[in-house]
């Protein structure tokens, strides 16, 4: 924000006040929207190409040089597709749902520090705002499911709600650890707290467990495999967006992918040290290098998403909820205790060892406790 103010003053001090005010407010929004929409388009292309390569085929290569214009082609196609609204649908709610799915995804981007000094809105309660707003899309999903007046959409919506609620709790608790370590809620503050060689929170035992929990919850929040139950193709046709076509369907897809990017952004901010990296404090091009660091780390989470999507099957509803309540939640609570132990330990090494041991014991105990349905190795007899 202040960087823009200095820029304006440096180059054209004679700018009328109302224009500078407008610039200060709207320029960051424009930048964020522009950057992340191109990242969204690029992400769909990357996903289809890499899924193709995983499955030994080339992926889209007809539109544009290496299929690069494929997202544009998809967008145009969906724009021109007829927008069918079922007769028995609740017209208003049916129309509002896709809008409300996209809004929270972009709102959260306001607090994600993309580069050094580049954050759309530097709220001092940044993380709280992010976690609160990111669950807004669930309401939209349920509106879509209910308004479509279709049994499959209803089933999908119910699953979506159950899933997001039950994964919200461990996610917040995993974030609590980071807030305790950083001491501030502001996302920029959290990133600054991770300076230093092994400063990234992921390098600490409780940070690593927190990162794993947060990443799993982020994948569940956004309904990515192995938790993509709300729109499970093979069971309930297309879940809550069965009855959507044309640009409304495109909005759902955009909402989903942008939410995946924002969740990745928050994970990177909290655990992987945001834009920190060697060379991010250089005077001249420091902000450019820090932006590169941020997007490199964002790419890690995207790779995890795509890789899981190409390999793992989907979890069943009851296993999904059991996994959240019976394993992730207790683990994140133990994680907070481990962080406290680490914090008040007399010296660094003792703190490290104690929290690591505590977490290891907790993980093994919880997994044993949840192994109600054991996977015994099956033996098969052969008759000649």
């Amino acid at each position: 924000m202040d960087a823009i103010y200095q820029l304006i003053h440096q180059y054209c001090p004679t700018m009328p006040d109302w224009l500078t005010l407008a610039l200060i407010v709207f320029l960051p929004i424009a930048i964020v929207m522009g950057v992340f929409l191109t990242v969204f388009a690029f992400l769909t292309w990357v996903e289809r190409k890499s899924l193709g390569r995983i499955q030994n085929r080339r992926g889209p290569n007809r539109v544009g040089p290496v299929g690069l214009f494929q997202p544009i082609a998809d967008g145009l196609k969906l724009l021109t597709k007829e927008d069918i609204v079922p007769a028995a649908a609740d017209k208003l709610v049916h129309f509002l749902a896709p809008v409300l799915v996209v809004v929270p995804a972009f709102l959260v981007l306001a607090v994600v520090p993309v580069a050094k000094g580049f954050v759309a809105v530097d709220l001092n309660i940044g993380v709280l705002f992010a976690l609160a707003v990111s669950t807004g899309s669930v309401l939209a999903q349920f509106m879509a499911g209910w308004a479509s007046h279709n049994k499959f959409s209803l089933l999908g919506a119910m699953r979506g709600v159950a899933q997001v609620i039950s994964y919200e709790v461990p996610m917040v608790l995993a974030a609590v650890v980071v807030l305790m370590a950083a001491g501030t809620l502001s996302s920029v503050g959290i990133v600054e707290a991770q300076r230093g060689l092994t400063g990234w929170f992921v390098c600490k035992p409780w940070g690593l467990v927190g990162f794993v929990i947060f990443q799993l919850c982020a994948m569940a929040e956004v309904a990515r495999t192995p938790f993509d139950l709300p729109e499970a193709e093979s069971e309930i046709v297309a879940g809550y967006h069965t009855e959507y076509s044309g640009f409304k369907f495109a909005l759902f897809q955009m909402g989903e992918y942008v939410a995946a990017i924002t969740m990745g952004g928050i994970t990177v901010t909290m655990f992987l040290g945001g834009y920190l990296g060697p060379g991010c404090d250089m005077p001249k091009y420091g902000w450019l290098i820090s932006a590169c660091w941020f997007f490199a780390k964002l790419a890690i989470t995207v790779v995890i998403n795509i890789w899981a999507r190409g390999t793992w099957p989907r979890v069943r509803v009851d296993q999904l909820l059991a996994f959240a309540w019976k394993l992730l939640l207790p683990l994140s609570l133990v994680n907070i205790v481990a962080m406290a132990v680490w914090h008040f330990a007399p010296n660094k090494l003792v703190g490290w060892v104690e929290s690591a041991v505590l977490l290891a014991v907790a993980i093994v105990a919880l997994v044993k406790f949840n192994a109600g349905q054991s996977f015994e190795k099956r033996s098969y007899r052969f008759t000649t």
Partner: protein
Amino acid sequence: MSNILGKGLVEGLVVTAKNFVGSYFDGKRKYRMFNYQYPEERMKLPENSRTFPFLVYDGTPDQLRCTACKICESECPPQCIYIVKDSDANGKPLQRPRVFDIDTSVCMQCGICAEVCPFNAIKMDCDFERSAHARFDDLITHLPVLLKSNDYYHQIKSAEATRVDATRKPVKKPAAATAPTAATPKAPVAVAPAPAPINPMPTPSDISNEDERAAWQRGYQSAIGDGEIVWPPPVVVKKKEAGTKPEQSVTNAPSPAPSSGGAPWHDSGLDLAKRMEMAAGRALADKLMAAMAQLDCQACGFDCRGYAESLAAGATKDFSLCTPGEDATKNMLEKLLKEAGKL
């Protein structure tokens, strides 16, 4: 979920990673990336591959091998072949099809017609890039479109074509020879000096002007369209004098060349009445043979003489096996067998 984050999930990730990386290093379609970027790259079809059938002709499209014996029409499971036998000006049945339609919307490319054809006249093509505008009329392939030369057959299926040619070579006698027996006499062969062959159909390549080629390409208005079947398409340019017609019939006088005493009627060019007239005074077996379609096409499982003898001896009861003879032969055989008290 004892080892939910255990070995199995990671193993899966390793496999997909290997495939992801491997797909970049498999240029020569050795292990992974098998699909061809059609239409730029085209896969070389194996020789046996078959799509829709086509009719083979040696030399000019006029000398096609098909003798309209209709075995393929009766054997075709979905009944999608439709043949009308050709006959020249004065009604004498010629041994070749005037109409040979294959309804490619019904044909299921099973290859049974090519298998049962005794004259190797119909073979399975391997070009699959066929598209049409309309669903009914365009999908019915008519005779000229079906006709493809023998060297095209050699080009797509060389081994099979050479094998077929080998088997055909000894059988194909020159037109003038009067071998009555197993030789499958080819079309317009006749004991009498062959009438002037109907002027050969111009091949598309050497038709100069445009509308003629269009006429040839369209073949002729099919029966389903409007108008009578006209084939071979009248060459608009050259006016055929009507005069040639009568003198043709004059030379058709029954002055058979000296044939082995056995079966003067064994000539598919003669029509039924003339053949019965020839075999009037002979034994039952000969009369029965005269009633056949003289094609030795093995539709009945024998050649003409064998079938007549087994009918006369009462070995086979079924007198309707002579498919090329159609109803005319069937009724004649029935009448003869009734007279002889065999039925």
